[in-house]
């Protein structure tokens, strides 16, 4: 187990190095940060001077070396726009994004399991057919469109929920602010969470449904019927348990993907999280911030994937063996 862990850690480090190299090397194609920093009538000579002072004219290897040296000490450079360490800016926005992902995850969990199970048990009922139809539509509509439709319906037309922002937040610990503890904050969280869950929810309903149907066909379930066990016991204890194993694995990986989808949701709802920050940074050519974001998100992916692998190794020893031999 320890060898497996060390092996995975080594891989993770290599991946992080590649991510840092890639994100650093794309910066030349992002545009000229000076344009966003100075006014339109500033002369070229003046701009050249600023560029020199910022070290943007140095050769790539020098710039990357300087970056790597600082990065190893935990300094990913200062954001041009925020004028503070980029890493600090991102970590400050992290709770908002995590709360959004949490909200969406809760919606997915609370809805997908009962609906999926119901559809598997009663595949022919009108509700199941309706759900299958709706889920196809749900998967096909892009997140930003869902988000705009939600705003028009619930904010403008009905006037029930606020249209943008995070609402009132409470300072809890170490400068982290949360919107989960105020009524206003929760009201603000609702629409973005629904929008964000709109892609994953249909996927999970369908996943649970098909997994469950497969499990229900298996021998041990037939034996259970033959033994005369109660229906509820067969469905919710024996079948559901085995249905959820692969679902949890997929879910772990999908949380990473969800962070990517927050970019769109956060932009439409003006949600002050990491994804929104990233899009803004791209528009402003705030290269240190872009690089820091890519590295942080890369790290989140690497960590979750490593964890999923480790947990999987614990649950299913065959995985560990094959990895070990490879």
């Amino acid at each position, binding site marked *: 187990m320890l060898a497996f862990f060390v092996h995975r850690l080594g891989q993770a480090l290599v991946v992080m190095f590649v991510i840092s190299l890639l994100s650093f090397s794309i910066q030349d194609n992002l545009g000229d940060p000076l*344009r966003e920093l100075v006014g*339109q009538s500033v002369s070229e000579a003046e701009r050249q001077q600023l560029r020199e002072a910022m070290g943007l004219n140095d050769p790539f290897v020098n710039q990357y070396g300087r970056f790597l040296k600082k990065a190893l000490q935990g300094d990913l450079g200062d954001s041009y726009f925020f004028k503070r360490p980029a890493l600090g800016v991102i970590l400050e926005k992290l709770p908002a994004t995590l709360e959004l992902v949490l909200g969406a995850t809760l919606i997915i969990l609370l809805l997908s399991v009962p609906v999926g199970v119901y559809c598997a048990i009663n595949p022919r009922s009108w509700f199941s057919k309706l759900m299958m139809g709706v889920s196809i539509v749900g998967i096909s509509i892009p997140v930003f469109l869902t988000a705009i439709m939600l705003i028009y319906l619930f904010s403008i037309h009905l006037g029930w929920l606020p249209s943008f922002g995070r609402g009132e937040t409470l300072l809890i610990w170490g400068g982290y602010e949360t919107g989960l503890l105020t009524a206003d904050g929760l009201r603000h969280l609702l629409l973005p969470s629904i929008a964000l869950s709109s892609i994953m929810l249909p996927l999970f309903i369908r996943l649970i449904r098909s997994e469950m149907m497969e499990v229900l066909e298996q021998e041990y379930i037939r034996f259970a019927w033959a033994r005369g066990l109660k229906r509820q016991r067969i469905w919710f204890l024996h079948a559901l348990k085995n249905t959820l194993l692969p679902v949890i694995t997929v879910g772990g990986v999908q949380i990473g993907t969800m962070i990517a989808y927050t970019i769109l949701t956060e932009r439409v709802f003006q949600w002050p999280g990491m994804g929104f920050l990233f899009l803004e940074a791209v528009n402003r050519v705030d290269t240190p911030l872009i690089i820091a974001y890519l590295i942080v998100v890369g790290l989140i992916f690497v960590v979750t994937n490593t964890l999923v692998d480790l947990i999987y190794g614990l649950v299913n020893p065959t995985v560990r063996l094959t990895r070990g031999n490879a």
Partner: protein
Amino acid sequence: MKKPLVLAVGLLLGLCLSLGVAAKTLRLAYDSDPISLDPHEQLSGTMLQLSHMVFDPLVRWNKETQFDPRLATSWERLDQFTVRFNLRKGVKFHSGNDFTAHDVAWTFNRLKSSPDFKGLFQPFKELKVIDDHTIELVTNEPYPLVLHMATYIFPMDSAFYTGTDEKGSAKDMLKKHADTFASVNASGTGPYVVTKRQQGVRVDFKRFADYWDKESPGNVDEIVWTPIKEEPTRVAALLSGDVDFIAPVPPTDLERIRNNVKVDLVTMSGTRIITLQLNQERRTEFKDPRVRQAIVYAINNEGIVKKIMKGFGTAAAQQSPKGYAGHVPTLTPRFDLAKAQQLMQEAGYEKGFSVTMMAPNNRYVNDDEISQAVTAMLSRINIKVDLKTMPKAQYWPKFDERAADIMMIGWHADTEDSANFSEFLVMCPDKETGYGQYNSGNYCNKEVDQLVLATQGETDPGKRAEMLRKVEQILHDDAAFVPLHWQDLAWAARKGVHIEPILNVMNFPYLGDLVID
């Protein structure tokens, strides 16, 4: 038994009343928020909007594009080089310090050292302090735009910005992308004080209790400025009542907002000209004025304004918008396809040719759609256009390289004066002087250059306007560039927020004078 009830009702009523007269708050949503609190860090519309809230200029533009006195109460031209300003007395800074001529001198010197502003203040030699409430602005040469530039002088509290902060750096340090004292602290004379700022999320303002302008009708006690980038969200926030005032209003939503009974829409013809430049160095065809004219005749810019901009613009045939000194009223859009084809034939290009074109896709209103329409229109005179549009961040480096035969550029004159357009867009490109910095067409006409340079020293407004009009006429006849339109401006607010009186074509809402019912 009844007494407690009466008491309770009375208390409740009292509470309601006190709430009624309690703080009036304006929640406003622009498309961006200020990059810094330091007014000299960047010359941009957003920073100037902030400056008009936290600081006051010496003079400011009014609706008639004339000057209103602010911190300067009156002014007179002493000679060809000197304008004297009398300053307002009894004005306090947010810190409690008194405002004097020394603060103006201090601010002027800081402007001269700011990378963004020093170009604009190049013509000025010095600012002389005569006494505590009198200054003189002295120019190197006779200079006609002294008052125009005085709108950029927002006196800062020199005592407040003197000394060192806790990190040991000078408080007046002016540095881009650095955490300076001035970028997070501000003390001006303006109507609002910044109370809280979460960059990229919101800025909170409170009315300055000792604001000098007691005659201002403004009754807004608090302002919350939220940047909302996404256009549908900004509109939704207004329509759902989450904010009170938004700008800009996207053209696609103009009709909806105009027809909504709960909100008011204000539009104005703007001053930003959108043009196409035809690069004569890359293409010999563009050296022939007939080809350039043919292109101008082939492009139906009135159609573009009507169909693509949904009427949210004014089709142009020159650089200077109405109200500017150089505006020539007789120049009108010249779409005429037959004439265009005839000109192409005369020039010997009836078979046409292929060119490349580049335009941004997130800089100007509908820039992407406009360039596609132009491509289609030029195909009618057999010019095949290979179009590439890209985000502004990538576009500007391409523009600097002059990477395509036709390039789009929009321009707003920082001086609010006609000569500024020509200095940057059509004068012969010259690295030394900086003229023609944005002239990707490489149009070069000695007569135009001489006229524009002559206007810089002409202090007689009548003669100067005549020269500027002549420049526009030459550029028009020569088809030096392709004028498309001036972008309109639009703001919207919920009913009861009286935005109309405080808006102007410069897009500096004077929020200090805003009245809310």
